[in-house]
């Protein structure tokens, strides 16, 4: 008995010592090898993932997502929802400091939201439902909706192209232009230090950062910056990013080849972590002009021909990095559903030919645009195009660089299908194909009525039911043909502690640091 106690005590001591050694400590420079440089860190305007990954350390919004992708307060202290969801009064936390020393107040929030509502990428989605925004005293904001609008909190929590808060003077001066680097002033745990083009973007720890008191939970809770400096370095070649981490020249790297995943996972000189932010690729159909306009049977024929599994294997590498799933939202979210997905990944050439015949298809040319700017788009497209040709479709695969594709897709007369990736979103209202302005221009009566009902319903259970109807409609009218889900992985130095097995949508550099 006594011996057992000794063993237990010794085990406990060793466990505590190991934990203490593994605990990250304050200090050090983190060198992050990134694929390119972002065009701007102005989060209200830019939706580049690269920009968000960096800017989330500088700028904060009223809400953010926890580990379950639920929106929870960040700059907000309390919320008061009145009038059946038509009115919301938000009270700000006290004493929150901007990097220039100014204390955050409701005036800053009003100015930032006003700019975002006019020029922000996702601002109009929220503000087309808001009747009035008012400042009450120094620290309160009142939002009055035209009718109850369920996704408001999700939209306020999503940083990418989202409503981050700038000082009033900065937001008002910037107007529709990009905020210049010298005015990258936020309330986040790191402050902007320098952009040396072609070499790095540097952020320094903001020592006067005012923490939330809750424990860290996803992007929410206590955001404790441990590194002295974060340096984001453009390293365009994936082989160099891998070699750089192995050689100790970089501490963290992103966008790595899927084919190397298994060998890097087994390599003791480095560590890997998977992103939970499931991405997918969408093959958009043109609903405004061309051979696919209003011809849903023909779209179903195209869908029946696709071998999604083969496409994903070609584009993303080993199975650990992707899954097959017909659901539009991943199973890490409450929106996951298998409603209407029976026609996903059937890869039935005979069925495709039969449906094409019923649709009256006579071998007209189907123009399919893709890009080599993102290798996986091209790799996936070569498989999809071959599947479609095998089923008798006359596919004209047009390969462009990304800038040309973006320019051409704006003209409905120039294409029938185009492929693009869609990053993780926590709220289905943010899907690009839901917007009637996005190329593809899906705007049938049934879609309009369901999406209206979806945004006006507050009850989460009823919202899920409506979303399932929308997903079923997506598989009937086929504005997009989706892949499964793809998970990117990151490579990092074993010297870093606290990263864990998986990152959220974008890796964050608070709460982690170098080990002792």
């Amino acid at each position: 008995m006594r011996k057992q106690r000794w063993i237990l005590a010794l085990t406990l001591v060793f466990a505590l010592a190991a934990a203490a050694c593994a605990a990250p400590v304050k200090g050090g420079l983190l060198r992050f090898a990134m694929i390119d440089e972002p065009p701007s860190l102005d989060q209200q305007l830019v939706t580049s993932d690269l920009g968000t990954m960096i800017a989330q350390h500088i700028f904060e919004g009223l809400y953010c997502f926890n580990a379950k992708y639920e929106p929870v307060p960040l700059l907000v202290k309390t919320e008061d929802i009145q009038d059946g969801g038509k009115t919301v009064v938000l009270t700000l936390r006290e004493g929150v400091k901007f990097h220039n020393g100014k204390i955050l107040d409701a005036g800053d929030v009003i100015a930032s939201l006003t700019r975002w509502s006019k020029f922000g990428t996702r601002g109009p989605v929220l503000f087309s439902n808001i009747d009035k925004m008012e400042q009450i005293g120094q620290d309160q904001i009142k939002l009055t909706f035209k009718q109850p609008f369920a996704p408001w909190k999700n939209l306020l929590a999503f940083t990418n192209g989202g409503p981050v808060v700038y000082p009033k003077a900065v937001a008002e001066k910037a107007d529709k232009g990009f905020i210049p680097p010298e005015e990258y002033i936020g309330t986040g745990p790191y402050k902007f230090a320098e952009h040396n083009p072609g070499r790095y973007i540097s952020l320094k720890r903001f020592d006067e950062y005012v923490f939330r008191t809750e424990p860290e939970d996803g992007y929410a809770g206590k955001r404790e910056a441990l590194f002295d400096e974060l340096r984001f370095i453009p390293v365009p070649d994936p082989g160099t990013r891998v070699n750089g981490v192995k050689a100790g020249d970089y501490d963290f790297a992103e966008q790595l080849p899927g084919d190397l995943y298994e060998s890097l996972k087994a390599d003791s000189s480095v560590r890997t972590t998977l992103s939970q932010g499931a991405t997918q690729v969408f093959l958009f159909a043109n609903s405004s002009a061309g051979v696919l306009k209003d011809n849903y049977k023909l779209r179903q024929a195209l869908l029946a021909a696709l071998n999604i599994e083969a496409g994903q294997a070609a584009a993303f590498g080993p199975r650990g990095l992707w899954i097959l799933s017909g659901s539009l939202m991943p199973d890490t979210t409450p929106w996951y559903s298998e409603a209407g997905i029976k026609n996903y990944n059937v890869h039935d050439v005979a069925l495709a030919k039969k449906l094409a015949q019923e649709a009256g298809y006579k071998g007209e040319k189907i123009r399919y645009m893709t890009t080599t700017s993102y290798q996986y788009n091209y790799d996936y497209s070569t498989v999809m195009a071959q599947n479609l040709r095998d089923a008798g479709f006359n596919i004209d695969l047009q390969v462009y660089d990304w800038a040309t594709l973006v320019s051409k897709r704006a003209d409905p007369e120039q294409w029938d299908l185009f492929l693009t990736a869609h990053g993780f979103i926590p709220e289905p209202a943010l899907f690009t194909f839901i917007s009637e302005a996005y190329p593809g221009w899906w705007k049938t009566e049934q879609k309009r009525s369901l999406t209206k009902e979806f945004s006006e319903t507050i009850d989460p259970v009823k919202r899920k039911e409506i979303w399932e109807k929308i997903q079923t409609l997506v598989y009937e009218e086929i504005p997009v043909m989706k892949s499964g889900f793809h998970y990117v992985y990151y490579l990092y130095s074993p010297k870093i502690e606290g990263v864990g097995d998986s990152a959220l949508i974008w890796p964050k550099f608070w709460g982690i640091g170098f080990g002792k």
Partner: protein
Amino acid sequence: MLAYIAKRTISMIPSLILTSLLVFSFIHMIPGDPAAVMLGDNSTPEQVEALRETLGLNRPLYVQYGIWVRGLFRGDMGQSIFFHQPVLKVIGDRAETSVFIALISIVMIILVGVPIGIVSAARCNTGMDQFLSGASMFFASVPTFWLGLNLMYLFAVHLKWLPTSGFPSILESGDWSNLRYLVLPCLTLVAPNSALIVRMTRSSMLDVARADYVKTAYAKGLCESAVTLKHIFRNSLISVVSVLGFTFVGLMASTAVTETVFSLPGVGRLIVESVLRRDYPIIQGIILIVALMYMIVNLVVDLIFAFLDPRIRI
């Protein structure tokens, strides 16, 4: 000689005007919009239009060209759309890397390529010549990205003698030890370019070796080395110098692959990235500067010709 230089310099002006017009027209003919690229996939048409207005991209092309040319006369090449900084500053920052790479590489290319070319020509059709010619063909054919990654794996990852990538500024830090970052990139560039110089020196020397004055030199009883170096090598230098001049400019501006592999902030990578981003002012600026460099190098090469071959001066 001064009159010759002045005449050549003045003749550059119409070439530069024509280049500026062609560059501007061609770039704006390519589809693609910098505002849409910068704002990302989720941007709305209204948002793109608002940014186009802010950047002045919604003005007629002739107005944009006029503004650009007016700026050129004041030494202002405009503002980079992507970096929000003056074009000359962005190019200037990148020029440091490119100048160092070009200078180190060209010296190494001369030191490696020319002597091997001379030996190869002097030992023409021997086992030594076949070995050197074979080796130079091998290095001329190896893709630079493959060679670069392998050198990186050996010297940086495995042996840990040198850094994998990047190049911290020497001008900003004053730290000349940063030159170690350029060792592997320069080796990657020296291999194929030296091979070219080896081939050029060899073939040029073999051509000259058939000339009558070489036979006369031998007939006079001069020794082998004196004939090879003084009569054959010097006269064969004209074509070698010409290639070296253009290799130097190529090393300044056309090394995008090597700069990408070693993550170097050089001019070559900047031009490729700017084309993908449709950063028109940067593309226009670089092409104009590179065109000017080619013209100047052409002039310098012509002057060296005149020095090497007195007949040209007549």
